[in-house]
């Protein structure tokens, strides 16, 4: 399977795209009321003021899109971070990005209610960049970024920011209730504003990663290999880290720190794909989107009619998968 021919790859990607469309359709169609294919099409076409059209156009479609792209972005962020730290068991959480974005979102929601939704997402992206730049600064060994120091500095910053979030919530217990789903990860707040930010950012990042896929591969091979191939590692690490912060910054500010996707999906995909990084990137983004969308679909029905935070469902699916990946890594050695 690892020596995928070009035809096989096209088949796999095609099948995954089909599956993605099917699950996104399921998310639009199923819920409190179920809508048929015809109802959905006529709602999109007419875009009128009936309840049905508004529910489909203003709630179901944006939520389905956001779910898919959050999963896709977090999975890609995980893949990149695993490559640049050369550690398969890390994700954007390790760089402190998720904690930073969560802190800023909680801060804005409680103390700066006037900034609005878009403002909070904007803050999230800025926070992700600030965290990443701080972590990079802290992990610099003389003039080079030390790959070994990177996760360590990220962890320290992450713990610090998490404690700041907790102190805000401690003094605002009632507000903590309103952040409960967000803190676990949820797509309930998704709307067209989130789509407008998330989708372009994700697509631009995927394209950039596809263009830079060779460099990502070289960086993952390590410092010596990169030097012998003449790749300026620090420069590319910086670019990749900015990509990670864009992907994770938007996703986390929109849906909360949805866990596990960033760590499981790249590992799962690597079981099928080994050396072709372009294929790896496309597959990771599709599988991440599918996992998040499927979890969102399940989350609507777990304790119907109540919503369940999607982060919880992903954790339930994610923990056994993660253990499987970790165990099989160990048995390889």
């Amino acid at each position, binding site marked *: 399977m690892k020596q995928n021919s070009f035809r096989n790859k096209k088949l796999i990607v095609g099948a995954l795209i089909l599956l993605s469309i099917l699950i996104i359709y399921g998310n639009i169609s199923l819920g409190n009321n179920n809508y048929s294919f015809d109802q959905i099409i006529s709602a999109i076409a007419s875009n009128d003021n009936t309840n049905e059209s508004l529910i489909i156009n203003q709630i179901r479609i944006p939520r389905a899109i956001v779910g898919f792209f959050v999963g896709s972005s977090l999975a890609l962020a995980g893949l990149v971070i695993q490559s640049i730290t050369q550690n398969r068991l890390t994700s954007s959480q390790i760089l402190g990005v998720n904690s930073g974005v969560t802190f800023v979102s909680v801060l804005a929601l409680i103390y700066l*209610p006037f900034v609005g939704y878009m403002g909070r997402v904007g803050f999230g992206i800025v926070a992700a960049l600030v965290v990443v730049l701080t972590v990079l600064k802290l992990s610099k060994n003389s003039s080079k970024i030390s790959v070994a120091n990177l996760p360590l500095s990220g962890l320290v910053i992450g713990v610090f920011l998490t404690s700041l979030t907790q102190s805000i919530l401690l003094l605002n217990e009632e507000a903590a209730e309103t952040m409960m789903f967000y803190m676990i990860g949820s797509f309930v707040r998704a709307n067209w504003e989130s789509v407008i930010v998330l989708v372009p950012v994700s697509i631009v990042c995927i394209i950039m990663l596809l263009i830079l896929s060779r460099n990502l591969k070289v960086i993952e091979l390590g410092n010596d290999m990169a030097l012998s191939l003449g790749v300026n590692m620090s420069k590319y690490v910086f670019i990749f880290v900015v990509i990670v912060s864009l992907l994770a910054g938007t996703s986390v500010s929109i849906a909360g720190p949805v866990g596990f996707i960033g760590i499981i999906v790249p590992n799962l995909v690597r079981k099928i794909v080994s050396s072709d990084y372009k294929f790896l990137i496309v597959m990771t983004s599709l599988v991440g989107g599918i996992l998040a969308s499927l979890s969102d679909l399940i989350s609507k029905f777990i304790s119907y009619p109540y919503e369940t935070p999607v982060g919880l469902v992903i954790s339930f699916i994610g923990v056994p998968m993660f253990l499987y990946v970790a165990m099989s890594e160990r048995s390889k050695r």
Partner: protein
Amino acid sequence: MNKKIISLMVAGIVTVSLTGCTNKENKVESNESEYTITHELGETTLKEEPQRIAALEFSYVDALVSLDKEVVAIADDLDKTRIIEEVRSNLGEYVSLGSRRTPSLEALMEVSPDLIIADPLRHKDIQKELEQIAPTIYIDSTSVGYDEILSAFEQIGKAVGKEDEAKKLVEEHQNSMKKGSTSAQKLGTVAIGVVQDGMLSLQTDSSYVMESLKDFDITNITDSKDSRHQVTLEQLVDMNPDTLIIMTDEKDADFKQFKNNPLWNKLKAIENGNYYEVDRTLWLFSRGLISTEVMGEEFEGILNEAK
């Protein structure tokens, strides 16, 4: 699901503690000036009627103000406005003890109170430390309904040596809540809720708000048996209540986003103008005699205003 599990656990703890209460029955042994109060975490002996009281939860402040007792320290989450104006204006100067969950023991020690009122769920872990500072009684205030708040009021009355007055005040309060002779039936189906986590958390018949307004005979849109019923905007549109009361304030960013959706304007209550915003600190978090009476008056106002 998470919230359901938590509320089930809390309900379990409350049931156990309430059973404990009925078995023991609160008793006051008047041994000259010394008397013993039995509360949720045991018994506490008070040498004399307390004059300097520390309150570690908002509802106790409401009770102490009603009973005209001096409150010297309050765990107010570092925000005086969390205490409603009607209570705050009758409060003297007090020392803030910081967060309700982890009140500052040092600050508490400095004000040297002669009685501390604490919550059994929140402050069980610091029971020893609190008792070293002053006699402490534990009264559940965070996870209980309307009737429990009334009996808690009487219990506080006993502790501060105003047992008869407390009973009388509770009676007066109950009468004032009955004064709503206008039935809420004219409102049609009613949804009272607060936006949390991007969803509307509806107050069910077993919630504090609905229990305290039960004499108004409200037709609640939800018949859920839980204390609250969380619905998405989509579900709310399906339920489509005749009257909608949202507990909110100007800092409520979550609600602003919730009503930003075009579907919000399609709700029957919005289209017909049967929509009201009320203060969430007063309606949702205060849980005292004074605040509940103000809430009752506001609800009557809504009834009079409704078409």
